[in-house]
């Protein structure tokens, strides 16, 4: 038997938790994007050891589940003398994990820029970082954009996994409301609607960008990996 009915207050409680979902997604997007830029640069760097480091980084974050990475960050905190904190662990994990996926997306775009551009820049006396920053990336941005927006959808959805280390956002708020109301259809229907409202516009925008940039493009960027959870 339920302790409470599912009413407006319960709906509002879940809806308000969306601010934490959005905040975590923004942290992942901004931080992950920055890390991803570095990872992508390392992946195409002239020095082989740098490429190895970046490859290993990507392999780890793409080859283990997000939840395991979250637990490692959560429990690893006490190892370096901090108290485990769900938000710190989630922020760190999402930035590092996002960095790996963004790194692959950016690398795909960077590598589809013709090699002649690199050679031309080198012949003008540009070094690696300047070539990347002033010649390659400005041209690659339009190739990066559609998969980047597409990956934002994956980020929003995967923030729900952070509820499993105790971070309160939409999924966890929904579980809490479900425990007292036991109205799973309403509770998780509400949660689904919130996620859908956040993700669907991004999905539509991503496929719009894909179509827009697909016209008149000679090379196709390899399809980025989609994150499932």
């Amino acid at each position, binding site marked *: 038997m339920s302790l409470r009915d599912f009413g407006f207050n319960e709906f509002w409680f879940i809806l308000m938790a969306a601010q934490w979902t959005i905040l975590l997604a923004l942290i992942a997007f901004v931080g992950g994007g920055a890390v991803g830029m570095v990872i992508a640069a390392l992946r195409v760097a002239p020095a082989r050891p740098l490429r190895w480091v970046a490859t290993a980084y990507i392999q780890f974050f793409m080859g283990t589940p997000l939840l395991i990475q979250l637990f490692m960050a959560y*429990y690893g905190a006490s190892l370096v003398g901090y108290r485990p904190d769900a938000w710190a662990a989630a922020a760190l994990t999402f930035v590092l994990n996002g960095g790996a996926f963004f790194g692959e997306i950016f690398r795909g775009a960077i590598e589809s820029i013709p090699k002649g551009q690199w050679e031309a820049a080198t012949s003008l006396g540009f070094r690696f970082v300047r070539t990347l920053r002033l010649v390659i990336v400005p041209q690659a941005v339009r190739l990066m954009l559609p998969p980047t927006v597409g990956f934002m959808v994956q980020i929003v959805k995967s923030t729900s996994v952070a509820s499993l280390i105790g971070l309160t956002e939409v999924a966890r708020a929904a579980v809490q409301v479900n425990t007292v109301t036991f109205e799973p259809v309403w509770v998780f229907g509400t949660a689904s609607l919130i996620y859908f409202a956040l993700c669907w516009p991004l999905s539509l925008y991503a496929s719009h960008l894909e179509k827009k940039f697909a016209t008149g493009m000679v090379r196709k960027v390899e399809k980025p990996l989609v994150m499932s959870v």
Partner: protein
Amino acid sequence: MTTVLQFGPVLVHLDRLLWGLMKTLEYAFLSVAFGTMIGILGAVGRGFGPRWLSVIIAAYVELIRNTPLLIQLYIVYFSLPLIGMKFTPGTSAVIALSIHLGAYATEIIRAGVESIPVGQIEAAKSLGLSPYRIVRHIVLVPAVRAVYPSLSAQFILQLMGTSIVGAIAAEELTAVANNLVMQTFRSFEVFIVVAVIYFVVVQAASLLLAGLGRLMFRWKQ
């Protein structure tokens, strides 16, 4: 501050972790099998079915792809009993995982179906092949072959996605790991070991899928 890693207390429970791994592989395998079936039916329904069917399939794909797997797990686990369908957490997990993968598989295979030139289908028709044989041999097999890399990447993600089914009390590797944390208090070590297990299994599964693809689509290499 004792910061020395001790793997001993964790590794004595390796048998339990491996039992969890077997459950993980079971969920992954079953949901990949069912999900791919849904994907094939969905792609054929979208490509060749009546308009209403293709609208329903499109709605299913969009709904699943724009909501988290975790919420889908909760819906299946908590809501199905209300209409009299009571399942164990394990069965609920497989149902939710299959529905989840089904949407992605539909979308991936549909992309493959769309890459088949119309002329190829017309040629098959003019040769007098039955609709079933056209869909199977002229459309589906080449379509799946074309998108096999995306499909197997999705399977790998599914394998890692099973890690969250512990949320509905289904037993698998991550859930076993969480039990070991309570028991051994070697939380970080437990998850290092589990991360290594996942990593090795994911690499092995990738190799296996690549090999399988080469075997299944042997012609025209």
